[in-house]
């Protein structure tokens, strides 16, 4: 009988080829990044404006604006605008997160020029028709009421409050009631503050010649660029969170409990980040990480435990996530703390280091291999300040890391004493067992 061949050796992972990023300052504070990536006949488009503190603190206005920005311009109605974008094989829409407003889209490469004309119309002539804004705010309020009913969102909000305290990043998803108060005139005032002042970042990735595409953007957006004033939009830095008791947010009748631990991480422009990213991978960032092997594969407590980094302009944060059976919430928290303590005090093995190193480079290559993946990565790097050089410097740094570097980073960022803990669950069922483990404060939903 034929014998199956033995396991092939694992090849050393090498740094991916760096994409050729063409950078150009288009004037008026608009900075463009463009990459030719011709796998598909499409172009991914991103345009981001960083928010200033007073805008971050108006989440209701921003939520409606990100919808109503497509509600019509001086030249187009919402319907004709949507039909024009669709006819180009395109998509265009807005979204807002903790510190930026982004117009995002994609179009058939051959239609990039007319697409950019539509973008120019939106950024320089969106006119927020009153009837459209009234309809949009009602709909956004309804959508938010659904969002706020999701356990994962409740958990993220609770963790955000604990992590950011008095920082603008603590600003929450606006209440449906606040959203229903937003007026068209307010959005007409907010639009130029958002779009016409401060830095702005344009990213184009796809089947294009970068010099030509960037010139095309400069021409299409020319009138808008001329009216812009550059400048900075600084945010106060994020500080290490104040630790304290476990916060239990009551969600009666929950059949699962959501455990979240959070802390600080170095930013992508910090020399600490590559080592911290491997510590993150070893702890809970890969499928074969300690957290998943323990909570899922050994104990069956949860389906998708993980640790993730979130990078923003004012700082980066760590979240450890586990949605566990209600009966095992306290034992699961014990295991999470055990794994944190073990990582910090007993260190990592050579095998883990190589595994995490290869996984980090592989995942980075995978995420930047597609047009949308690369466009989003470039935009985040530009807005957060690390810049496109990160695409080549990160894999190089990861390849050069020594075990001590990763152990040091683990000690600095994963010590359980430096992390905050929140749990979402039915207090009648889980408060008792959590209290036998730690101090607990219960909050109403």
């Amino acid at each position, binding site marked *: *009988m*034929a*014998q*199956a061949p*033995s*396991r092939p050796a*694992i*090849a*050393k*992972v*090498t740094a991916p080829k760096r994409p050729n990023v063409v950078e150009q300052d288009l004037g008026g504070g608009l900075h463009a990044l463009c990459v030719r990536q*011709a*796998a*598909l*006949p*499409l172009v991914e488009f991103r345009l981001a404006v960083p928010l200033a503190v007073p805008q971050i603190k108006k989440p209701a206005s921003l939520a409606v604006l990100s919808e109503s920005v497509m509600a019509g311009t001086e030249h187009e109605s*919402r*319907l004709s605008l*949507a*039909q024009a974008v*669709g*006819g180009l*094989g*395109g998509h265009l829409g807005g979204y807002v997160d903790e510190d930026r407003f982004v117009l995002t889209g994609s*179009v*058939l490469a*051959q239609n990039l020029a007319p697409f950019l004309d539509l973008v120019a119309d939106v950024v320089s002539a969106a006119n927020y028709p009153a009837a*459209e804004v009234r309809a949009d705010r*009602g*709909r956004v309020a*309804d959508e938010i*009421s*659904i969002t706020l*009913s*999701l*356990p994962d969102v409740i958990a993220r909000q609770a963790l955000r409050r604990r992590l950011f305290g008095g920082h603008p990043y603590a600003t929450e998803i606006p209440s449906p009631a606040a959203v229903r108060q937003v007026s068209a005139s307010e959005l007409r005032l907010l639009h130029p503050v958002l779009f016409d002042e401060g830095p702005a970042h344009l990213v184009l990735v796809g089947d294009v010649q970068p010099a030509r595409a960037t010139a095309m953007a400069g021409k299409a957006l020319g009138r808008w660029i001329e009216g812009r004033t550059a400048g900075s939009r600084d945010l106060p830095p994020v500080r290490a969170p104040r630790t304290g008791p476990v916060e239990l947010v009551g969600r009666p009748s929950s*059949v*699962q409990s959501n455990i979240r631990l959070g802390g600080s991480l170095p930013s992508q422009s910090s020399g600490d980040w590559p080592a911290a990213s491997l510590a993150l991978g070893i702890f809970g960032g*890969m*499928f*074969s990480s300690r957290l998943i092997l323990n909570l899922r*594969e050994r104990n*069956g*407590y*949860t*389906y*998708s435990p993980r640790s993730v980094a979130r990078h923003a302009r004012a700082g980066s944060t760590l979240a450890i996530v586990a*949605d*566990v059976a209600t009966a095992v919430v306290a034992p699961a928290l014990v295991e999470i703390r055990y794994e944190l303590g073990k990582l910090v005090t007993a260190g990592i093995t050579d095998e883990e280091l190589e*595994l995490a190193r*290869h*996984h980090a*480079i*592989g*995942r980075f*290559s*995978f995420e930047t*291999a597609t*047009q949308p*993946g690369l466009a989003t990565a470039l935009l985040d790097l530009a807005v957060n300040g690390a810049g496109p050089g990160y695409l080549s410097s990160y894999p190089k740094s990861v390849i050069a890391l020594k075990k001590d570097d990763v152990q040091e980073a683990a000690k600095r960022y994963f010590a359980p004493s430096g992390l905050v803990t929140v749990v979402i669950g039915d207090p009648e069922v889980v408060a008792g067992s959590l209290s036998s483990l730690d101090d607990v404060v219960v909050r109403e939903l």
Partner: protein
Amino acid sequence: MAPARRTGQRVERSTLPNGLTVLSVPDPTATLVAVAVVYDVGFRTEPEGRTGFAHLFEHMMFQGSANVGKVEHIKLVESAGGLMNGTTFSEVTSYYEALPPSGLELALFLEADRMGSLAITEENLRNQVDVVKEEIRLNVLNRPYGGFPWILLPALAFDSYANSHNGYGDFSHLEHATVQDCNDFYHKYYSPSNAVLTVVGAVDPDQVTALAQRYFGAIKQRRTPKRVPSGEPPLKADRHRTVKDLMAPQPAVAVGYRSPDPVADLDRYLASCVLASLLTDGDGSRLRSRLVHRDQLVTDIGCLIGTFGSDTFYVRDPTLFQVIFHHPGVAPTEAVLRVIDEEVDRLALLGPTSEELRRVIATSTADLWRSLGSVLERARVIGSIEVVHRSGELLFELADRMQEVTGPDVAAAAADLRGQHRAVLEIQPGGS
């Protein structure tokens, strides 16, 4: 301007003596290689009294085989700089990984080892039953709109066990699953002749064929299971069911019609896909512009074809044409249904305008390409289409086929919907 046609995505095929179909799709622009093994088994195939078994079994495929320990599969893929996953649909179950080109042989070794000699233990099975129960709590039981509409609508719109049962499974069925059940299922459905191996990306097809023979060639041929058709006749009367959801803040509704046969009647099926886009793709579409923006009766509305929508091109037998909406409850659900009927009637009578048709086809074509950006998705989808249509190449022909859909084809698809009885599943919020 009509979208440019893209050629150069060729599919090279071969079949091993044990029946395994091997597809290679070289892509000179790719920096990675993706491997997918798709088996012709899914929820529709799982035994009665064992709901959720196909998905539970997918978990067991990561729990070890003759030469690979529990979780070692994942560790090895990650060590080689790769990512992996598995997914279960109604018709197919797929296992896939993307790696740097140097990892191709490792991926083939790992897939062959679990196809040839899976090793299931009682301890690992109980562990994964616990994990799957948490997956179901996460995605269904502990959240609003859980299982809406993919579990709830088929249960109303179909009658046979194959089509109507819950693919995630009842807890009692999952808890009673045995190692023997796993071994029987594996023996019956996980044979090489019931699978398709697809390799996409920075690869040479000749090398793929040789490596496939090297790693999979020793796996013994087994009997290919006979497929049981699961198509159902049209509904004889309208059906309506209301499900209370204590966690939901707003009503949500899913309307289910029978689609044309996705395999035997692909042209009519594609006309239905174009109809779905005309109705709800983007703010320029008929139902979004009217119901969301003009009349403001719904918060959101969308159409999908298949069980999930992602599976449109790898389902068999007439499946569901679904219209799904959330509404604030200001107007009754019937008012929204009347508008949907009116707009579908209008399309049935007059057809789309030529400008509208051109626009929707441009969007659909671009969206199709967008979905192919990742080599990993491409490998999984080509393998899945091969299982159902016996033609993975079809993926690259869909854009051209869609451009051949005419106004009268769309009008006929609309008339077909209006001629049917339908299933209306309504989520009623709150405890009242």
